[in-house]
């Protein structure tokens, strides 16, 4: 368990005592989440569960933090809390600077609208300044590389085109703090190379990065710090190589234990 990292004064993200609680009575589509809740907290009843609990860390300018852990450990929830999309049930998150979150690709496109209209709409949702969005639109269209389809409704797009446009919109911002969630492998090979280069460019330009991924190569290559989340708690924090080692040791142990435990799970509504 880690306390608050007493870093230097130029921190950009400060997380104190963060807890996020889900109320399962309200979420009917919770088979997956609910099963993790039961798996992790069978003693506490079925109604609520803590996706994150007692999480504390501080991110300093220039740091690139990897968040790793098994499925359902609360990694994505942590990013949602950092992005302000989910309000903490406990504790506080303080962020200095502009945050851009690349959480999943192909976001809430409006199928009936053209690609161009969707770009402007997405910009408005993200709170981007209208004039600068207009300036950027050609760049976004060029990067997405979807040709004349840009003025056709999104419903006529192929899955790959949607992904490319989504990526292109989401990375059009140059944020101070970048939150990334497994968006690294997307599109065809050519676009994957292009998007990886773009992400690296943003990672370098950003003051701080928080990256959630299962790709340990990324962690080792691009992050200078890592935390390991398990069951909503930070179980280890430190050098990426060290944390990746702990994570891999844990997952081997868990995969051995999990089979008998999984068969005991009650059916979830």
């Amino acid at each position, binding site marked *: 368990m880690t306390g608050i990292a007493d870093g230097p004064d130029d921190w950009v993200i400060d997380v104190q005592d963060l807890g996020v609680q*889900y*109320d399962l009575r*309200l*979420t009917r589509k919770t088979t997956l989440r609910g099963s993790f809740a039961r798996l992790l907290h069978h003693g506490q009843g079925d109604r609520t569960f803590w996706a994150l609990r007692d999480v504390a860390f501080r991110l300093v300018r220039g740091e690139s933090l990897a968040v790793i852990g098994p499925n359902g450990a609360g990694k994505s929830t942590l990013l*949602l*809390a950092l*992005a*302000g*999309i*989910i*309000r*903490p*049930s*406990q*504790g*506080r*998150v*303080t*962020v*200095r*600077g*502009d*945050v851009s*979150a690349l*959480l*999943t690709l192909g*976001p*809430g496109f*409006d199928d*009936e*609208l053209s690609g161009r*209209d969707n770009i*402007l*709409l*997405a*910009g*408005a*949702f*993200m*709170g*981007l*300044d*209208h004039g*600068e*969005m207009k300036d*950027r639109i050609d760049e976004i269209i060029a990067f997405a590389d979807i040709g004349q389809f840009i003025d056709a*409704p999104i419903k006529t797009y192929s899955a790959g085109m949607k992904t490319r446009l989504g990526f292109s919109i989401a990375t*059009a*911002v*140059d944020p101070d703090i970048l939150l990334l969630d497994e968006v690294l492998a997307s599109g065809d090979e050519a676009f994957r190379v292009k998007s990886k280069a773009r992400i690296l460019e943003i990672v370098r330009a950003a003051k701080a990065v928080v990256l959630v991924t299962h790709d340990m190569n990324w962690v080792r290559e691009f992050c200078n710090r890592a935390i390991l989340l398990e069951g909503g708690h930070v179980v280890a924090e430190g050098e990426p190589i060290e944390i990746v080692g702990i994570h891999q040791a844990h997952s081997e142990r868990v995969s051995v234990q999990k089979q008998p435990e999984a068969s005991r799970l009650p059916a979830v509504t």
Partner: protein
Amino acid sequence: MATRLEARTSVITSRISGPLQLVIEAVGEIRSRHRLIRYLVGADLRRTATNTALGKVWWVLDPLMYMAVFTVLVTVIFGRATPDYPIFIFAGIVPWKWFATAVEDALGSVAGRNKLIKQVQFPKVVLPSAAVLAATYNFAFGLLAMALLLIVAYPHRVSVYLALIPVVATVQLVLTFAVCLVGAALNVFFRDLRLVSGHALRLWFYLSPVLWSFEEHFQNAPPTLVSAASFNPFYTIMSGYRDLVYYGRPPDFVALAVILGASLLAAVLGLLFFKWLEPAFAKVL
């Protein structure tokens, strides 16, 4: 570099602001995100305009056809002879369609953006607001259709009181906004609401004096029934429109003021309710 409009340092805590603060916050969000609302309204209007062969003509044509259907139903099938019946019901149908469209669109407005809500942080109150505003645009076109009908077919019904339509419409707008805020927030948790709403709206439609009025059709109605009916805010609103358009006389200003006051209170409570539930949206969707 694209810049953001939000403040530079943001503190996110579990602390929930006081009621007054929440309402002020919501009003501030609507004002600061007016461009987003405008985009959403534009998107909504373009959707209907680009998917149909006649496009924008439908905005005027649709209420006319609606009116034609009800005129056939009531005058031919039920054999009710009301003078100038098309304009009689037009005065009620156009505002009712505004309300019904706004409510139905607003109900799905938050739940329908579930992907976006889990991806981008933005004030969710813009969604029902945009739905109400888009319906208001359609209402304006409905009024245009009504103006055409009045001038072409019923020039003798044209009066100066038509200029007061915005007054009644303002009362209705506030009421609609209140209903939409509560509906949009509740529908996130209970999707059943959207299934019920169509039937509930239809019942409300028939209970409100849209196709009928006590004055024209049920003169012998017991006074208790009339006073019971006037508890329905749409009783006052529909009677107001009809006074202006059909009878060419001033509406019941006192009753309208009462409805406006109640609607304003409801809208404030609606904003509060919406803001109170907002933090749970991203978790539930």
